[in-house]
């Protein structure tokens, strides 16, 4: 703790020093022991750590960053807060006081991970050295001008901000490279997908389907967004087309029917980044007949909503269910779902529809609800 210096004007930053981040409700520990410095704000600048209790205006403790040799983390628990441990260089001068060579910053309110990361960066960047170097250069370059003159200050400020920009862009360099590579890929995908749409390319049907499935898995198909089509009916119509395009194959495989919740998941997964809200999805489904697509929104009496291929109409399904019942004598909801490879919800709806049309009758017992072919009406 003795490496902290108490100052009355610790809040003022030196030239070239800038504030990086702050933390609230931080308590200082001298080694493992608590100190009276609790509930304070901890500020990290490029040069030092400043601890300040806002209740006591004058109390500013600052620790120069160069003294921090090593950083450690202590994870929090139920009763204790997470802490950052700062291992410090041995104090020069008086070596008599038996204080520990480390201090702990206890983050009562959390946020220590971010603080630690920034502290780590600050220690790496060693801003305090740069400024020193600049100060050394400054005067030699401006010999004819006064070192403390306004011009000199202005120049040093300009140089510092330029340096800051370089640092920042250095940090983001990797990301930009990635974005650069992605750009041609995205534009290529866009051009191919528009070619497919306009059918101007020399792409065969199989390839088209394959390519579309690749795009789907990458999540960079050209999604219909409010930017491209605005709101209103044309938006929903275009969305309806997109939904049909996404679901056609899966629907064929799963018996022509899919609950709206499944539709929502699949469509958003396919779109990747430009997610669809439930209302937009619902409105798009309602616009399906308008868009002239062989897909319909159908709501059962129980309230379950599904998207259904028109080829798999209710009558066809009821007939199928009837056949299944006759084949096995009787079926429960679970048995039908297993036999037909459909979800339990859809199996239940099918059996209820069959019952409603008089093709099935029910046997309700404590053990199970079973459905039989409706012999009452056939015998």
């Amino acid at each position, binding site marked *: 703790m003795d490496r902290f210096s108490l100052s009355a004007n610790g809040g003022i930053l030196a030239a070239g020093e800038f504030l990086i981040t702050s933390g609230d409700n931080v308590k200082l520990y001298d080694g493992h022991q608590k100190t009276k410095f609790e509930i304070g704000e901890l500020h990290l600048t490029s040069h030092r750590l400043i601890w300040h209790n806002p209740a006591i205006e004058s109390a500013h403790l600052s620790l120069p960053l160069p003294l921090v040799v090593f950083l450690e983390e202590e994870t929090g628990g139920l009763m204790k807060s997470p802490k950052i441990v700062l291992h410090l260089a041995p104090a020069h001068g008086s070596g008599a006081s038996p204080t520990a060579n480390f201090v702990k910053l206890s983050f009562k309110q959390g946020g220590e991970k971010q603080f630690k990361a920034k502290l780590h960066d600050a220690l790496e960047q060693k801003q305090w050295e740069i400024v020193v170097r600049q100060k050394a250069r400054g005067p030699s370059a401006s010999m004819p001008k006064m070192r403390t003159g306004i011009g000199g200050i202005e120049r040093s400020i300009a140089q510092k901000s330029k340096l800051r920009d370089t640092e920042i862009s250095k940090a983001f360099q990797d990301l930009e490279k990635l974005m650069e590579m992605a750009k041609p890929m995205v534009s290529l995908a866009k051009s191919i997908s528009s070619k497919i749409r306009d059918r101007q390319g020399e792409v065969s049907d199989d390839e088209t389907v394959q390519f579309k499935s690749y795009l789907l898995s990458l999540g960079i198909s050209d999604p219909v967004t409010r930017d491209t089509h605005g709101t209103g009916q044309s938006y929903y119509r275009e969305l309806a087309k997109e939904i049909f395009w996404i679901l056609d194959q899966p629907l064929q495989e799963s018996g022509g029917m899919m609950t709206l919740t499944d539709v929502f998941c699949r469509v958003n997964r396919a779109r990747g980044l430009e997610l669809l809200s439930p209302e937009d999805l619902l409105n798009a489904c309602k616009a399906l007949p308008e868009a002239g697509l062989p897909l319909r929104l159908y709501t059962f009496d129980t309230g379950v909503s599904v998207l259904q291929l028109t080829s798999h109409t209710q009558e066809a399904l009821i007939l199928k269910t009837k056949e299944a019942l006759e084949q096995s004598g009787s079926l429960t909801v679970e048995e039908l779902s297993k036999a037909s490879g459909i979800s339990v919800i859809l199996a239940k709806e099918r059996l209820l529809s069959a019952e*409603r049309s008089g093709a099935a*009758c029910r046997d309700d017992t404590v053990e199970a609800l079973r459905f039989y072919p409706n012999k009452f009406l056939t015998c």
Partner: protein
Amino acid sequence: MTEEFPWQHAFPPFFTLQPHEQTRVKQLEAWRSMILDYCQSHQITQFDVQEIGQSALFHNKTIQRRLSPEDLLVVLEDLRSHGHLEWDGPAKSRRKAHIYWRRPEEWGSLIYNWAQAHGMTNTVCTLFEITQGDDAQDQAFQGLDQDLLIKALKCLELESKAELFPDQEGVKFF
């Protein structure tokens, strides 16, 4: 003696009241005729609801199905609405009932036809004669339950085909 029931009795859904309108109509129809046949062959004219609910009629042990008490009441109410059943005691209690596998009106017609055939119109006849008399030996209503007989004659009264004496011992046919 194993009870012979129609196919519905071995069909599990028969013991669940069907929600589908059309199906239910058929189901209740089947229950009606099954119950009436059973009562006729066992010479049951009245019963206790709980007791009969446990009989083989309403409880098929082989397929382990039985009609629930609520559903049983629905079936019995249906019988009543078709004139085959009458509650005994306060209507709300529904613990005992008379069963008419032939409706009182039907009995009335039979008796009146017999009376006509035997030239008994415009004459007086005792109730005893109708059920126990020599002339009624091979008639279906021979030995008919007294209460039911009176009901049957009352139906004829409504049709102005007969008049029951106040002492309920005799009747005049018109």
